[in-house]
């Protein structure tokens, strides 16, 4: 094999790579373009004309704001629940040995491995069996099942890479449990929690399947979009919302990427 890094890739490979990337990202660009089309009943290519009127229309639609607000609140609370439960669970699994430890680890990860439709049906049956009415909290409950997994996975990986003697060293130097958590554990897992939390937020924010089963009549943003596509009225509004969502979610994802990029060195592996 050649190890010459300056050697240029063959032309065929370059074209294939370019086509692959275009295939992934052109449809997103299409969404952006349709947000400015003058045709409101169907997606017509090429757009007959361009306009910015849909931005204003979207701004003045109360249903958009309601759906957005519900989605943000659900995602925020689900992420918060996931941060607390996921961190505690990760700490237990990686810091101590107990009977059934591997089983607990597997059971925590299971919800994300299961198809969402199973989780959804299971939760819906459970809610109707126990006569719990659909509410904000049933959505949060549904979302927390997979948000916990994301935080747990991030935290458990970081805990494993953090030397256990750091905590003992902190105790040894006179710090009690709370101080040790505040000054040693938290700084060492903070970036992992931030990355896990952002991912959890993003997952919750665009979740459709589990939400359909646990939301009742409430509309989160993705469900609002789905319904909107069926109705041929002010279609570009959906595209405006989609465009804003892409722009707003891209920033935290880039931020999370940069924050965790340098996290590969093992914390406390000092020799």
């Amino acid at each position, binding site marked *: 094999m050649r190890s010459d890094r300056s050697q240029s890739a063959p032309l065929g490979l370059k074209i294939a790579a370019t086509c692959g990337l275009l295939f992934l990202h052109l449809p997103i660009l299409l969404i952006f373009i349709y947000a400015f089309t003058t045709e409101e009943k169907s997606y017509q290519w090429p757009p007959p004309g361009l306009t910015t009127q849909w931005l204003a229309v979207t701004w003045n639609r109360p249903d958009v704001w309601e759906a957005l607000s519900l989605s943000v609140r659900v995602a925020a609370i689900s992420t918060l629940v996931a941060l607390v439960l996921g961190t505690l669970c990760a700490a237990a699994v990686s810091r101590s040995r107990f009977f059934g430890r591997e089983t607990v680890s597997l059971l925590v990860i299971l919800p994300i491995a299961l198809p969402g439709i199973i989780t959804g049906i299971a939760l819906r049956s459970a809610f109707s069996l126990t006569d719990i009415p659909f509410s904000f909290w049933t959505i949060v409950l549904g979302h927390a099942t997979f948000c916990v997994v994301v935080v747990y996975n991030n935290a458990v990986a970081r805990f494993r890479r953090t030397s256990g*003697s750091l905590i003992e060293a*902190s105790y040894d130097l006179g710090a*009690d449990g709370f101080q040790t958590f505040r000054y040693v554990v938290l700084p060492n897992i903070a970036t992992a929690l931030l990355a896990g939390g952002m991912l959890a937020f993003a997952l919750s924010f665009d979740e459709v399947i589990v939400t359909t089963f646990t939301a009742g009549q409430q509309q989160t943003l993705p469900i609002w979009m789905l319904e909107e596509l069926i109705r041929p009225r002010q279609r570009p509004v959906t595209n405006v919302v989609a465009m804003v969502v892409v722009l707003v979610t891209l920033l935290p994802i880039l931020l999370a990427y940069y924050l965790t990029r340098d996290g590969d060195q093992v914390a406390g592996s*000092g020799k």
Partner: protein
Amino acid sequence: MIANEMTPAVSFQNVARHFGAVKAVDALDLDIAAGEFFAMLGPSGSGKTTCLRLIAGFEQPTAGTISIFGERAEGVPPYRRNVNTVFQDYALFPHLNVLDNVAYGLMVKGVGKTERLKAAEEALALVQLPGYGARRPGQLSGGQRQRVALARALVNQPKVLLLDEPLGALDLKLRENMQEELKSLQKALGITFVFVTHDQGEALSMADRVAVFNEGKIMQVGSPQEIYQRPKTRFVADFVGSSNVLPPDFVQRYAGQRRWGSLRPEAIRITRDAGGDAIQARVSGVSYLGASTRLALDTEGLRLHASVPSGSTVPEQGDAIAFTFNRDAIHLMDEAP
């Protein structure tokens, strides 16, 4: 109880620490005097590190009592003991710079910022790392991290400093320097040092007293000279100073008593003439060690090691030789035959 001159720094009374069926430490009695440089020596799994963790408070005894300067230590968490540890892997906090690492103990005790940073600077100067405060632990060499770990412990002015194999990760030259430094630091500060090691050379050269551990028990406690020259058991003779262990039959023939005995390698003299009371042997191994050469001798179904100083003529492998030793050089051990 008020600590006085006679109160031991650390006292173990009938202490046991069992992990299920494993008796890591079993029925242990030990007094470590205040201001002493004490070494716990033993192979891995002998219970020496568990003992250290019992003093630090990371382990609680299954039975028995531990006192630190006269105060009962069972049930007292590590953060309420006036004892600090230098960890084997140093356990420096990777998210803090060197100065904040050293000041950590003072920070959690609520000492003001200027005061604690000044104390940390002084501690760094004490371990000869002045001006290293702004660096991250990841930017330091192994030897420097070791010094930072030492400063981080000493800045709290502990009554007892525990060192868990602190020199294990360092190369030979650095290790020798650190040995001397630790020793002079301990003398200067007057703090009780308890030091865990599996390296008998390190234990003998640094400690005022040595406890030799095996299988959760202390085999012998004494000064390095006692441990080296008068081992009480075969294990101690074998583990410390690689003495020759002599079986009762052999000892009876040359020392007149039917006991286990030990003979240090340097007490054996190789001779040319096979007459008199010289013992015939065959050289089965020659290892050059620099200052001396180590010979493996096979005689009477026994393998003995002899140490020949450099400069003298050294026999070759396979040579038939004879050796003698001063009868008084045989040390009789307590262990029953």
